[in-house]
């Protein structure tokens, strides 16, 4: 979510090094994007490698990005294994410790974190070079052992081979011979035409553990003597504990203690069920003096009033006022987008062990740098005294990428409140998650657009009203410029259609509801409003929606490429059964381009059923095409369920929803057929975790319009009176 925004701080020099990893017989290759090259054996680098080859012939790739299902552990391993010519079966993955000097996201400067669909994009060269450097050392080790020229030694599927002499060895066998060899600064990389793993649908590394119940998520971490805590948080955002009565809670069998912590009142218990029961028995008085007390309706009404006033200018080309006045036809709409919760499948949780001079944290860590720093600050430690153990994350969709480390910070406060006398597992229930804030901001867009006498778009005025995600966070300085939060206008500010007169302006009102990036961030609303308006312009011009879009995309060939591919594969314009209709949308996010054609049908009884989504994606070189397909399927299903019926609404400042029954994700029985086509590309790889989400809602909305003549401006669709069969 940050990729396109945070200033790219590519490093200029890299030092490769080789050293011992504590045991003399391990070959460790890593490099760090620092200014000064490191000497071999430098302690920091030794403990921060990207690849580790051990005498047992295992190749361990150290992943600097967490795995939340988006396939990064497989992708990063593929990059190393490709250049190393490793056998895919000998490759293992482990997670990097928190260390922003070594494991930073190269798109984000000195910051270790995953997000913005950037994991493979920023690591592509880094992990390939790590693999290539390791291969080079192994070849030279074999050359030394066999007293043969390195140039005569080849590497195939994890074996070093000298054809002429018939000698061969495994990587593991050559590890002892590599001691003392220095890694080269710039190893030779493969010609992409010779890739054997990159570009192939090789099996994911995490699948076996995830089909046998063996994969360890934070929820499954068990530390000796660990107790469990849940927190009673206030019903309104911004309220504080005034007083509490723990007497009844302490009577619950298994409850150990009750303490006020920063975000509420923590109940400590011998197990999760006792903690939950203890919380039910707890009585808390809240101080709501600073609480947010508005409801969604009131917020929308205020936003609507704001939308009548000019906002901060995000983009201004030409003279939109005059162009609108002179337009041959105009379309306009006010779009309403609700707050949205991420609801990852694994409720948020974190295990922490706090001791006098150190702490350990177990979590599916998306922002290790922040989680380490915040935990250290709360516990009065230095960041390096806090160890972050990254484990599998049970979904995130942005929720775990919090600029204030929210639930990890809570765990630290919970541990501190009992002076670290036992390791604590802080568990959020699903209700805590749904009611807990950090939502996709509620947004209102007012769009007016016009066409000229030939039907070409001549004017586009888009006014966006929505809370800033970045204001008040450490990212503010990077990403808010001239009053414009880039994440509020992305996707509208850089509209892919050529319109000579365009204004995009923004209001960023303050609301006391915590907000956060939600799978594709600003694109989740801008992708919708822009693609519905373009559809309306095509209709006003009397032209086909695909042909019309293509005509305005002369400067955006990759948008046009996916649009043509999706239309062709969906047989756009071809016959459909009675009651069926198609709609289309195309949108770029995080430098990946996605077009989707939706087919919907009006079922008996009048309900709509989404029958099929045909998706085309251009993400540059697809490192693992099957993972790309999976991420498109995932983004489509996530976006579709949300568009159909999901909203977090507030009434008097309190969240109305509390669990899946009233914030219900798409179910298998509602899932359309999905077909994904990947554009063949030799461009550098870009992300796929998020870009599949934005086009699905407008594609379906445009199909619903084609089917029943109703435009949808208020989301979710259920709020616009659309029934689904």
């Amino acid at each position, binding site marked *: 979510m940050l990729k396109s925004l945070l200033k790219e701080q590519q490093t200029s020099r890299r030092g490769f090094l080789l050293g011992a990893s504590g045991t003399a017989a391990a070959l460790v290759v890593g490099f760090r994007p620092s200014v000064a090259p490191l000497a071999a054996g430098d302690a920091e680098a030794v403990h921060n490698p990207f690849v580790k080859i051990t005498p047992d012939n295992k190749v361990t790739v150290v992943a600097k990005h967490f795995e*939340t*299902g*988006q*396939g990064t552990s497989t992708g990063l391993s593929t990059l190393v294994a490709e250049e190393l010519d490793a056998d895919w079966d000998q490759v293992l993955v482990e997670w990097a410790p928190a260390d922003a000097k070594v494991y930073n996201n190269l798109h984000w400067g000195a910051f270790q974190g995953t997000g913005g669909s950037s994991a493979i994009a920023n690591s592509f060269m880094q992990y390939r070079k790590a693999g290539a450097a390791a291969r080079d050392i192994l070849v030279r080790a074999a050359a030394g052992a066999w007293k043969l020229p390195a140039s005569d030694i080849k590497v195939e599927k994890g074996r070093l081979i000298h054809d002429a002499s018939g000698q061969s060895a495994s990587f593991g066998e050559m590890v002892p011979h590599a001691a003392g060899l220095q890694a080269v600064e710039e190893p030779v990389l493969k010609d992409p035409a010779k890739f054997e793993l990159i570009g192939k649908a090789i*099996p*994911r590394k*995490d*699948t*076996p*553990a*995830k*089909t*046998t*119940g*063996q*994969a*360890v*998520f934070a*929820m*499954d971490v*068990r530390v000796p003597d660990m107790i*469990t805590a849940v927190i009673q948080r206030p019903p309104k955002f911004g309220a504080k504990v005034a007083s509490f009565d723990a007497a009844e809670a302490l009577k619950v*069998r298994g409850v150990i203690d009750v303490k006020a912590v920063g975000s509420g009142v923590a109940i400590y218990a011998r*197990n*999760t*069920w*006792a903690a*939950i029961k203890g919380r039910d028995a707890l009585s808390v008085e809240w101080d709501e003096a600073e609480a947010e007390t508005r409801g969604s309706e009131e917020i929308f009404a205020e936003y609507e009033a704001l939308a009548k006033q000019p906002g901060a200018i995000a983009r201004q080309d030409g003279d939109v006022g005059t162009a609108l006045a002179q337009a041959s036809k105009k379309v306009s709409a006010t779009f309403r987008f609700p707050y949205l919760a991420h*609801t*990852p*499948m*694994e*409720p948020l949780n974190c295990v922490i062990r706090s001791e006098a001079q150190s702490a350990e944290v177990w979590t599916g860590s998306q922002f290790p740098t922040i989680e380490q720093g915040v935990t250290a600050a709360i516990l009065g430690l230095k960041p390096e005294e806090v160890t972050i153990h990254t484990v*599998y994350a*049970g*979904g*995130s*969709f942005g929720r775990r990428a919090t600029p204030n480390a929210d639930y990890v910070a809570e765990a630290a406060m919970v541990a501190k409140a009992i002076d670290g006398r036992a390791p604590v597992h802080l568990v959020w*229930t*699903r209700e805590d998650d749904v009611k807990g804030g950090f939502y996709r901001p509620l947004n209102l867009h007012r769009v007016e657009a016009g066409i000229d006498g030939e039907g070409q778009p001549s004017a586009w005025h888009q006014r966006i009203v929505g809370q800033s995600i970045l204001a008040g966070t450490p990212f503010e300085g990077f990403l808010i410029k001239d009053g414009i939060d880039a994440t509020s206008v992305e996707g509208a500010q850089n509209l892919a259609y050529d319109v000579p007169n365009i204004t995009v302006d923004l209001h960023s009102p303050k609301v006391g509801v915590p907000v956060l990036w939600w799978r594709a961030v600003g694109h989740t609303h801008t992708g919708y409003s822009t693609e519905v308006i373009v559809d309306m312009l095509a209709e006003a011009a009397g032209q086909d929606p695909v042909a019309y879009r293509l005509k305005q995309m002369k400067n955006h060939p990759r948008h046009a490429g996916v649009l043509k591919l999706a239309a062709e594969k969906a047989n756009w314009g071809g016959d459909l059964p009675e009651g069926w209709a198609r709609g289309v949308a195309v949108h770029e996010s995080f430098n990946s381009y996605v077009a989707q054609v939706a087919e919907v049908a009006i079922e008996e009884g009048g309900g709509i059923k989404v029958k099929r989504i045909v998706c085309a994606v251009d993400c540059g070189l697809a490192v693992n095409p*099957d993972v790309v397909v*999976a991420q498109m*399927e*995932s*983004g*489509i*299903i*996530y976006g579709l369920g949300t568009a159909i019926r999901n909203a977090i609404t507030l009434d008097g400042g309190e969240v109305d929803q509390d*669990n*899946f*029954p009233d914030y*219900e*994700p*798409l*179910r*298998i*029985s509602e*899932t359309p*057929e*999905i077909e994904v086509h990947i554009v063949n590309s030799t461009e550098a790889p870009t992300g796929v975790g998020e870009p599949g989400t934005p086009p699905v809602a407008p594609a379906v909305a445009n199909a619903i319009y084609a089917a029943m003549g109703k435009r949808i401006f208020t989301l979710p669709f259920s709020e616009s009176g659309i029934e689904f069969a």
Partner: protein
Amino acid sequence: MYELKINGETRSVDVDGDTPLLWVIRDELNLTGTKFGCGVAACGACTVHVDGAPTRSCQLAIEDAAGVEVTTIEGLNSPVAEAVQAAWQEMDVPQCGYCQSGQIMQAVGLLSENPKPSDEDIDDSMAGNICRCGTYVRIRGAIHKAAGKLEI
């Protein structure tokens, strides 16, 4: 003290009678393959087999589990389970993976009753299991694939 027959063993647990089976399995017996997702039987992440039938363990109190046989993902051991897990692996179904124990327990239950389910049968049986990563297309495919394996 309650006795529980689980994965072929009899275990004793010292908990209150209203403790859901889910928390007995996870917190007392440390069998963490069974997941907590919602606590209200709306997501299926906690699905186990009770006397062979897929059951939401968050809704079964330990005091009501006397005499039943419970199987968790760790205790799966049947040709149907093998076929399902193999199909899941061949199709790389999981993404984050958190819901997949529940999905697999439900799918094994389905195929044990109905060895050749249609898409509609699959939708009917699996609709109670939420996957936030949206692996549904592959779940459908993997259940068909597992059915194919069992036919041979």
